[in-house]
């Protein structure tokens, strides 16, 4: 029997449906409405989603410049955050987390955990609370150095190190600052303000981080249609190709990318995929066993089985197996209001009021202008979020196209080939 692999579609999880109105408001440019929707969601949510919704709301507050409130929410979430590394966790733990009958407490991935502290450095800088920002800088340092992060990821976050360096410098900790800047490598954030001037830090949070959606694969195995569902990571559109910065009408440089969240997430997903598929197979087996039991029971009870009745039994068992999958979808919860990448530029500026503009070609907003006050020896932050007002947040669903050639599709095909024999002998 030939093996057939095709994609049936994707489904929104309960969390996906819950977050959609807040996402829509955010991407349509109304961060205040997004924050208000999320505040109401948090009140109604159980413990399982509360901290993730808190992080989403913190991003909506941060985009409005309500840094102190955003920081408080992130501190609360950080204290209770559970972490699960999809690329290293045992398959049974993954299956338990992603495919359990009842959604448990959301578990952040290690990069998401690092981002809580990275974003909170931005929040406390924006709020002018340098001592609290330094706390976050120390926390991020501990995570990056002591967490079980692979070597290449440990140093793939120059933004966190560079922000930490800038914060320690302004907190009067030159030793810690030098150490953090050394870990960051050359980013441009290590250049101090000229004597008598202040620092203007321009942060551009560009695009949207990839998110997880449920991908459903139909596998023709041992003469029966089997449903395999996994959390697929999908990129999202939007963002500016570059972001030149203007100060008081003069070009002063371009903010370089210091953290490529999208690239890192997709790279990491490649490592996670074999385990995710193995966990998905673990979840597929009970559904298959149940539908096969239904098949056998129906056939055993028939006195005079004929072709038409057999076809009906087959159809019923297949529908039953599909329905089980629909009832118990994959856990696709993730921190969705994060940007796809973060750029940062440090400027030495004379004290006083200045007009800062950032060109964002390719986005709906086009150009953002802000008035900012700089003090001698101080640090002022301008935080630009390009996704705010950059459209509806449409994502390309894996169900909408041919999966042939995609990483998940190819991996699922390999897995199906490997497991075909199991079903053949069943």
């Amino acid at each position, binding site marked *: 029997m030939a093996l057939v692999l095709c994609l049936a579609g994707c489904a929104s999880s309960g969390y996906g449906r819950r977050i959609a109105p807040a996402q829509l408001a955010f991407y349509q440019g109304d961060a205040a409405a997004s924050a208000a929707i999320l505040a109401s969601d948090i009140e109604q949510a159980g413990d399982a989603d509360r901290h993730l919704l808190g992080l989403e709301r913190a991003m909506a507050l941060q985009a409005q410049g309500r840094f102190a409130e955003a920081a408080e929410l992130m*501190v609360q979430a950080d204290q209770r955050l559970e972490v699960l590394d999809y690329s290293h966790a045992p398959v049974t733990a993954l299956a338990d987390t992603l495919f359990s009958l009842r959604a448990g407490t959301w578990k952040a991935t290690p990069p998401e955990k690092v981002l809580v502290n990275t974003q909170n450095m931005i929040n406390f800088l924006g709020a002018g609370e340098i*001592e609290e920002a330094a*706390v976050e800088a*120390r926390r991020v340092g*501990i*995570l990056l150095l002591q967490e079980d992060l692979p070597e290449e990821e440990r140093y793939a976050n120059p933004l966190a190190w560079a922000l930490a360096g800038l914060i320690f410098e302004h*907190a009067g900790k030159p030793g810690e600052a030098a150490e953090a800047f050394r870990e960051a490598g050359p980013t441009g954030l290590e250049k101090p303000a000229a004597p008598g001037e202040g620092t203007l830090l321009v942060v551009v949070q560009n695009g949207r981080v990839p998110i997880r959606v449920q991908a459903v694969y139909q596998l023709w195995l041992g003469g029966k249609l089997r449903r395999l569902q996994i959390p697929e990571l999908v990129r999202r559109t939007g963002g500016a190709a570059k972001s030149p910065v203007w100060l008081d009408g003069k070009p002063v440089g371009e903010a370089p990318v210091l953290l490529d969240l999208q690239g890192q997430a997709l790279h990491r997903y490649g490592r996670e995929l074999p385990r995710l598929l193995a966990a998905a197979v673990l979840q597929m087996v009970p559904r298959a066993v149940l539908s096969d039991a239904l098949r056998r029971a129906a056939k055993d009870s028939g006195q005079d089985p004929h072709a038409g009745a057999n076809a009906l039994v087959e159809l019923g068992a297949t529908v039953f197996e599909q329905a089980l999958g629909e009832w118990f979808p994959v856990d696709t919860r993730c921190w969705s209001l994060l940007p796809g990448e973060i750029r940062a530029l440090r400027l030495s500026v004379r004290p006083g009021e200045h007009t800062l503009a950032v060109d964002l070609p390719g986005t709906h907003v086009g150009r953002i202008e802000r008035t900012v006050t700089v003090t001698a020896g101080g640090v002022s932050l301008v935080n630009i979020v390009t996704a705010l007002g950059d459209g509806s947040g449409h994502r390309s669903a894996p169900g909408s196209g041919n999966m042939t050639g995609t990483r998940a599709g190819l991996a699922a095909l390999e897995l199906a080939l490997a497991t075909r024999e199991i079903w053949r002998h069943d």
Partner: protein
Amino acid sequence: MVKTNHSRWALLLITLVLGACATSYTRASEEPQIDEAAMSTRLDRVDLERAVERWIEGFERSQFIKGLGGGKPNIAILRIANETSEHVSGALANLLNSVETRLVNSGRWSVIDNTALSRDAVMAERLRGLGDSVDKATTAALGKEFGIHYFINGRVGDTAEKTDDKRRVQYYLFLRVTDVATGVAVYQKQVDITKQMEG
């Protein structure tokens, strides 16, 4: 009869469900041990009380106190800086108030309220970035503008380590008393506190 049994079972089930969902509250004055349990790796009231107790105890027994003459010199606590990886600024503000209270109650000092220093914009800005050492200009201003004879300043630092299932934070509280007239440290002591979270 059957109906009655069903009603009983239903009542029992409702009681069990409601009982399982009910939230309970406890008053520490009735169950003092609830104050003892550590709930996080941050500093709690018990940590602060023990830290203050140990520092004050050492201070009271120090050569400096023994050599202090009569009268009630003016003293102020400037700032206890947070140099940890935990958001404990609120706890440190309580620690500062706690040390102030102990000094007032000792009857040996006239304590200049820390908030009086914070109300002065220039002094508040000076104190904001204060680390271990206090510059001469600030020391002079403390004596001249506020009549302070001695001041206390310090910091809380930590060493935090994390493995897969454990996070341990070792705090050290360092407080120093300085004579405004000479700028010399007359007493200093470090108090250590360790907290660990598992699971």
